[in-house]
């Protein structure tokens, strides 16, 4: 855990159960572009560049809206054993995975 995150967690203290969504700062603009490129091009190898699915399932808002947020973030971050979905944690933080899920739910940027 980075120092900033630790301080932040301590600061939250008893209110740590507040939805972590609000606690997550968005990646900066340059990093957002990198993540968009990663999702479109590299996640796109299996899920399609337009995210309409391929060997992996479609990742459009309609496909994801009923799935729990934490599960989606965990799928990106830790992968899904027994399926071809690998863990992406060496390429992004958990907070960034959460940002990616939020974008997917809202309709992913180009």
């Amino acid at each position, binding site marked *: 855990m980075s120092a900033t995150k630790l301080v932040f967690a301590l600061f939250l203290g008893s209110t740590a159960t507040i939805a972590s969504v609000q606690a997550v700062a968005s990646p900066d603009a340059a990093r957002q572009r990198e993540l968009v490129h990663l999702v479109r*091009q*590299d996640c796109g190898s299996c899920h*399609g*560049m*337009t995210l*309409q*699915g391929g*060997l992996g399932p479609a990742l459009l808002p309609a496909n994801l809206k009923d799935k729990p947020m934490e599960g989606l973030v965990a799928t990106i971050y830790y*992968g899904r054993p027994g399926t*071809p979905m690998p863990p992406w944690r060496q390429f992004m933080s958990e907070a960034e995975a959460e940002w990616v899920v939020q974008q997917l739910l809202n309709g992913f940027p180009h």
Partner: protein
Amino acid sequence: MRSILSFFLILILAACAATPQRGTGDLGLVIERANGHVTLVDTTTRQAYARIGGLGDLSHASAVYSRDGRYAYVFGRDGGLTKVDLLEARIVKRVIQSGNAIGGSISQDGRIVVAQNYTPGGIKAFDAETLELLSEVPAEYAPGQFSKVVGLADSSGNRFAYALFDGGEIWVSDFSNPTRPLTQRFPAGRQPYDGLVTPDGRYFLAGLFGEDGVAMLDLWQPEKGARKILENYGRGQEKLPVFKMPHLRGWSVAQGKAYLPAIGRHEVLVVDVATWKEVGRIPVRSQPVFVMARPDGRQIWVNFAFPDNANVDVIDTLAGQVVHRMSPGKGILHMEFTPRGEQVWLSARDDNKVLIYDTASFQRIGEIAAESPSGIFFTTRAARIGF
């Protein structure tokens, strides 16, 4: 009268000059995956000569050729099937044949083009001349259960072999009667992810993702069923993560050996094609995606999955090891050899370029601008089984 005649003579000459006759043996196309374009290229001049748009979603596109090498059939991700005339540089015909496609193949006699689909899972056969639908084989492996189809390959007698990712089977459909295909089914193994047919058209191999091994079917004796080769090549060790599925399509059989990408291991597996036993494994820099033999079989070129897709390793089949390591560009997605292998063309997606290398000296000898290039397909594929 004489002046009228000479006028017509000039007209005829001008018409000839405008459309010089030429063959197609040194032509090809490059898929521009992000914007629905293909760039047409000439491997003799090493130049692009035309660019065509309107092919839909080409984010995972591939192409096969008519037997005269004039027409390319481009299979798009969105289920589009587009017939492109390489000489006139135009789209001849385009149909949307499914919701989500992954590639296709052309029959031995060149009359049937077959598309393989993820959604709805199955294959569809089209008249190569008109793109009219002839028949389809839904990949319904259990009642109401449809599988994504992978690895479609042409075989003799207008048969096509393919694998069912969800169904774990290899199917062989015989289109001798193109409107009434006959299909045989063979259990293969867990999660076949792609397939290839050997250059002689005899063996169909399906790489398995869900287990260590490759399923193999002898298409000369299909009644013997599919069997496993390279079983337990991972030796029970934990797999490394696979950030992009390898592709088997393309000949990777050279000098009596098949060179295959391992799954979850940074190795190329070497199999003796006579005995189908593993005879070696060659360490490479990352998870291999394409493992492609130069047409003469002397070299094997290997590209890699994300995040190592800037790299290419070249194996010398005589030495049995990597003899050249290069980092030619960003996002090397595909490689295509000229007909006799003196050049290789590499698509560098994130550099928006196709890079041309001399395969003997490994020197870059040219480049072509292309937007997010992916697959490169030369017309020599027209005459090759499995391409």
